[in-house]
C-alpha cells in the first residue's frame, strides 16, 4: 500500500509532466486551479494519467470535487482501499 507521501510525489510528477508545475510545489494544501494554474483540460489529463498510474477509476462527476492536491490524494487512497 502506497503512503500518502508516495501518492503525492507520484501525482506531483504527473502534474509536472502535464502542466509544467514544479513538482515541489504540488503539496496537499494547494488548489489545482488557484495555486497551480492547472486548467480544466489539463485536469482531465492529470486524472487520466493518475488512473493509469494508481490503478483506480476517477469518474468525471468526481473530478469537480478534487479541488486540492490533498483531495486527489485522499480520493486515490480510498479508491485503492
Amino acid at each position, binding site marked *: 500500500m502506497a503512503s500518502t507521501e508516495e501518492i503525492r510525489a507520484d501525482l506531483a510528477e504527473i502534474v509536472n509532466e*502535464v*502542466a*509544467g508545475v514544479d513538482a515541489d510545489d504540488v503539496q496537499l494544501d494547494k488548489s489545482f486551479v488557484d495555486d497551480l494554474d492547472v486548467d480544466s*483540460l489539463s485536469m482531465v*489529463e492529470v486524472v*487520466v494519467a493518475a*488512473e*493509469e498510474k494508481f490503478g483506480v477509476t476517477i469518474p468525471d462527476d468526481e473530478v469537480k470535487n478534487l479541488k486540492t492536491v490533498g483531495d486527489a490524494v485522499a480520493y486515490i487512497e480510498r479508491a485503492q482501499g
Partner: protein
Amino acid sequence: MPSTRVVVTGLGTTSPVGGDVASTWQAMLSGTSGIRRLTDEWVDQLPVKIGGRVAVEPSEVLERVKARRLDRSSQFAMVAAEQAWADADLEGSGLEAERLAVALASGIGGVTTLLDNYDILLEKGARRVSPLAVPMLMPNAPAANVSLKYGARAAVHAPTSACASGNEAIAMAIDLIRLGRADVVIAGGTEAAIHPLPMAAFANMMALSKTGSEDGGDPTTVSRPWDTGRDGFVLGEGGAVLILESEEHARARGAKVYAEVRGAGISNDAHDIAQPDPEGRGGTRAIKMALREGDVDPATVVHVNAHATSTPKGDIAEGLMLHAVLGEHVDRCVVTSTKSMTGHLLGGAGALEAVATVMALHDRVSPPTINLDDKDPEVDLDIPTSKRDLPDGDVVALNNSFGFGGANVAVAFGSA
C-alpha cells in the same frame, strides 16, 4: 489600383533547410538540399522512405509544456511567428489588439494528432484519448494559437486550399489590410504531414516520387523540378510567417520594410480534383489578376518563385502560364523552384516560398534550382542552377501556388 499599400516588415520560418530565415536563405542560395532518408521505424512498410524534416526540431525552441498542447503543425507556426514578430519589432509598438489579425493556413491540419489519438483509442480505449485532441487537430489551430500568443483580436483565419493554402493566407491578409479590417496581419502557412498514412496516400495516388528510397539511393537528388527525370514531389514539413502591415502603419512606427506586396490573384481550375489544367488557364488568370491588382508592368517582373513541385504535368503547365502572362518579357525573368531543396511543404509551401521571394527582392539574388541536369524541352524558362543576381531598380517578383481541388494563388511582391 487599391489605395492602401501593404508592406512586409517581418519574416520567420522553420524549414527543412534551416531553423530560421537567415539559415534557410543561406542554404537556398548555396543550393543545399534538406531531403534525407527518414529514420522513423514506419518507413520500412512504405514505398517512399525520404522526406524533408525540419532542420531544427521545435522541441529545441519551444517551452515543453506549451509545445505538448500543440500539434506539430502549430509548433512550426509558433516558431515561425515568434521569429517574424521579433523581426518586425512590434512588441511595445502600441499596436492595438483590435487592429492585429492572423491568417495562417494549413493544408491538412493536425493529422498526426488525429492519427496518434486513433492509435491510442484502439490500443488503450476511449478514456485515454487526449482531451486536447480537438483543439490540437483542428485546421485553424495554428492560426488560433498564434492569435492567442499575440492577442490578435481583429480576426483569425485559416483558409484551406491544399498546396495553395499558405499563399491564400497571404492573399487574405492583403485583403484584410486593404479593406481596413486590420493594420497588421500575421500571415503564413504550416504543415506537419510526415506520417505513414498521408505518405502512403500520396504515394498511392502517384504524387510522391518513389525514386531515391532504395538502399543506397540519394534522397537529395529526387526533387528535380523541370528536369526530364522528375517523377513526383518529395514531402517536406515546416512553417513560415510574414508580418504584413499597411504602409502607413509601418512608416509611422519607423519599421524596416523588406518589400511591398503589390497584389494577389486567386482563381480556380474546376478541371480535376488533383490534376492541373494542362494548359494552365486558371493559373494564368491568377497571375494576371495579381499583376493587374498591383498595376504591375510585366516588363518589371524579374523573378518567379514557381510552384513547380517536380511532377511531370504541373511543371510544364506553369511554364505555359508564365509565357502567357509575361510574353516576350519571360526571357528576362529568373525562375526558381526552391522545392528542389526543401521538398513540398503542402500548406506551408506558399508561405516558405513567399519568404524566399521577399528575400530574393531584398538581397537582389535568386536562389538556384538544384538537380536540373537535363531540362525538359517543353519548358522554355530561364532557370539558373546556381544563384543569380537580380537587377536593381523598381522590380517585381511573383510567388505562385496551386492546390489539389483547383485553387491557383499568385502574389506579386515589389522591391521596397
